[in-house]
């Protein structure tokens, strides 16, 4: 299973990963629409990513979240009723919402952000 992992000490807070992600999924460069988040702090930046742990699968009342054959946790937007319980219950705080959408969104380990990262602060790990 591919999982997006992180090295916060390498992060230079350029936000290229977020912009790449939101551009890919929502056709605009907007860190608030990214499936991972870089938060600037006093020390190393805080990087929020999905570990594909699957807690959200059991939380979903309509079974709209499932693990695909590659082990990636995915949301079926057609089934989703927009309750956002998965957002509140994600142990990594890596399930996201935006006012423009009635469904949540999350990282599917596609790796495009990794390609955009100039320092190796994020990487895809095979687990």
């Amino acid at each position: 299973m591919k999982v997006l992992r992180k090295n916060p000490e390498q992060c230079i807070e350029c936000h290229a990963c977020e912009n790449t992600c939101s551009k890919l999924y929502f056709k605009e460069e907007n860190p608030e629409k990214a499936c991972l988040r870089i938060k600037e702090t006093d020390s190393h930046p805080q990087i929020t990513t999905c570990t594909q742990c699957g807690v959200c699968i059991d939380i979903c009342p309509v079974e709209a979240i499932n693990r695909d054959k590659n082990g990636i946790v995915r949301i079926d937007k057609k089934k989703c009723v927009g309750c956002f319980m998965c957002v509140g219950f994600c142990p990594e705080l890596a399930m996201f919402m935006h006012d423009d959408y009635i469904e949540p969104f999350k990282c599917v380990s596609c790796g495009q952000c990794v390609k955009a990262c100039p320092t190796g602060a994020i990487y895809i790990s095979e687990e």
Partner: protein
Amino acid sequence: MILKEYKYELGKIERGYNNRSLYINVGDNTIKEKEVTQFMKDKFIGGKGFGLWYLWNAVTPETRWNDPENEIVIAHGPVAGITQYPGSGKSLVVTLSPLTHMPMDSNVGGYFGPYLKFSGFDALELQGKAEKDVIIYIDGNKGIVQIMESDIEEKDSHLLSEILTERFAKDEEDKKNISVVSTGSAADHTLIGLLNFSFYDIRRKGVRLKQAGRGGIGTVFRDKKIKALVVRFEGTKGNLNNPADQGKINRTGIKLHKEICDLDDKQNRMRKIGTANIIEVMDEYDLLPTHNYKFGCHKDTYKISSDKFQARVTQGLPDGCWYGCSLSCAKAADDFIPETGPYKGQKVIVDGPEYENAAALGSNIGVFDRDGVLELNFYCDTYGVDTISFGTLTAFVMECYENGILDKEKTGGLELYFGNKEAALELLHQMSRGEGFGKIAGLGIRRMKKIFIEEYGADADFLNDIGMEQKGLEYSEYLSKESLAQQGGYGLTNKGPQHDEAWLIFMDMVNNQIPTFEDKAEALHYFPMFRTWFGLMGLCKLPWNDIAPEDNKYTDEPAKIPEHVQNYVDIFNGVTGKNIDKHELIVQSERVYNFQRIFNIRMGYGKRIHDKTPYRSMGPVTEEEYLSRQERYDKQLKELVGFDPEGKTTQEKMAALRKYREEQYERLTDAVYKRRGWTMDGVPTIEKLKEIGMDLPELIEVVKKHL
């Protein structure tokens, strides 16, 4: 066979309202739409407010519960159907009650309310009486309403809801789009019939039932010869209310989801065990009704404590009764096998137990037997019997039996002593069959008292003291003896002694936060109004205070959970686009609350005399009770009453205590009426009605006769 079909234009919900309702008369098969007016939305908001308004217009002061003009109104509310904030899928059911002869309201989960809304209607009125059993079907995607003759032999809810879900769903995937309202066989023979609202549990692959339990609404349903209501709606999404500010609702919901995720395990464990979490807590504080409310605890409570139920009822995954309820108090025991009755030996799903059921069907009737409670719970639900009324009236019957007022001859052989699980179950089966003593018991405590006094020569004073009913409705399951505020919380209610208006025992008795009459009166103003609001919106009360923010205890008014009150203001404004604040929220409720009070007065009730309560709710009726807590009562006599118990007989001490407590209740009543803006006879004043914008001519006409 379809008796009538009606086609309607599909609509779009605007900011929480369809602006129309559905009227069905099963007597002459009329089906029509009605406009929901701005006046209705301004004065009655929705839910129970709409129910009461439609019922007011349908009946006269002479209307009885079984007259064709009596209505059952099912309405949700402007906030209902949002999926982001926990507890937002409730239906409010209103009818003239066979127990109280006044408007009854009951709050119930399940998917019917939201699906009715998404199908295009803000309320459903059912009037008239059919000749033969009918099923009403609403297809919310095709815009079709049908009245059809029932061809179903089965009479109990767990089967009816399953059969109808199968019949109207296209396939397994579609079952979640169906909700069925039905009752069971006992609703044909008792006055305590309830309505079951279904939802399909996709994980268990079974139909679950939630209950509109109180006041005999299921009895009215069957009197109208309605077998079931079915709604189908495919396409639920989180924005079907077309709210003014979806983002605000989403963010408010997520904030609470997170709070529940972080804190529920440390607080009330609603996700793990649900309302049953308080069984042992109530026992510890001497508040768990035991043996017809004689006592508040029992040495065997551990046998029905929450961990015993948790071992049986939780399948590891919490579930809610509407989408987005992360508090998820709904629980079920699947693969339960009843040992008695028509479903003996079959595997069934039992919804519950709720705390109320564990107390009513457990401690109050002396059945300290987990599976016994579950079996009673299953049969009550599927027969369509209100567990609270059943438990409380069975407790009354058992005390009568142990006092020789009843005997085997009168009960047809049932040995109804406390703890006799088999006899309690047989009583319930008799209600289902309409036979024997079950038929008498099914009339409720008020009517039983009359029969026992007039036909069996029982002592009227004793029965009136121990019969735990008021306004004709059986008490719910808390011992109020040591909390004056809770005595008022039960007694000074609109529909009868149900704790959904005010639960003040901890504030009053345990934490002593409301010591004076004025403090108690303020609480008995604020909380009933605040809680009424849930019923106007289509909301559940539990996510308000069965979870609290971590810093709640540092706020100015912890009992109100200020942050959650603001959440409610935000989601109401978010849906409707209005701009109310927490004060206007209370005024919205006051309008409907006072309307309901005046409705009671219009029906010949609703005055001070109807707010009096049985002494069992206030203090020790028997020597056995007094002696069991003698130290407590002696101390109170000395310190509060100024009566020296030294050398006095128990009877003398009981009389002194009783005089004191009854006076306290009267003084409390004075203070509450004053705070609510009512006369000392409990009638809302014209001045009060003007203040809250409810000086409607039809209300003035009723109250002026009583001022």
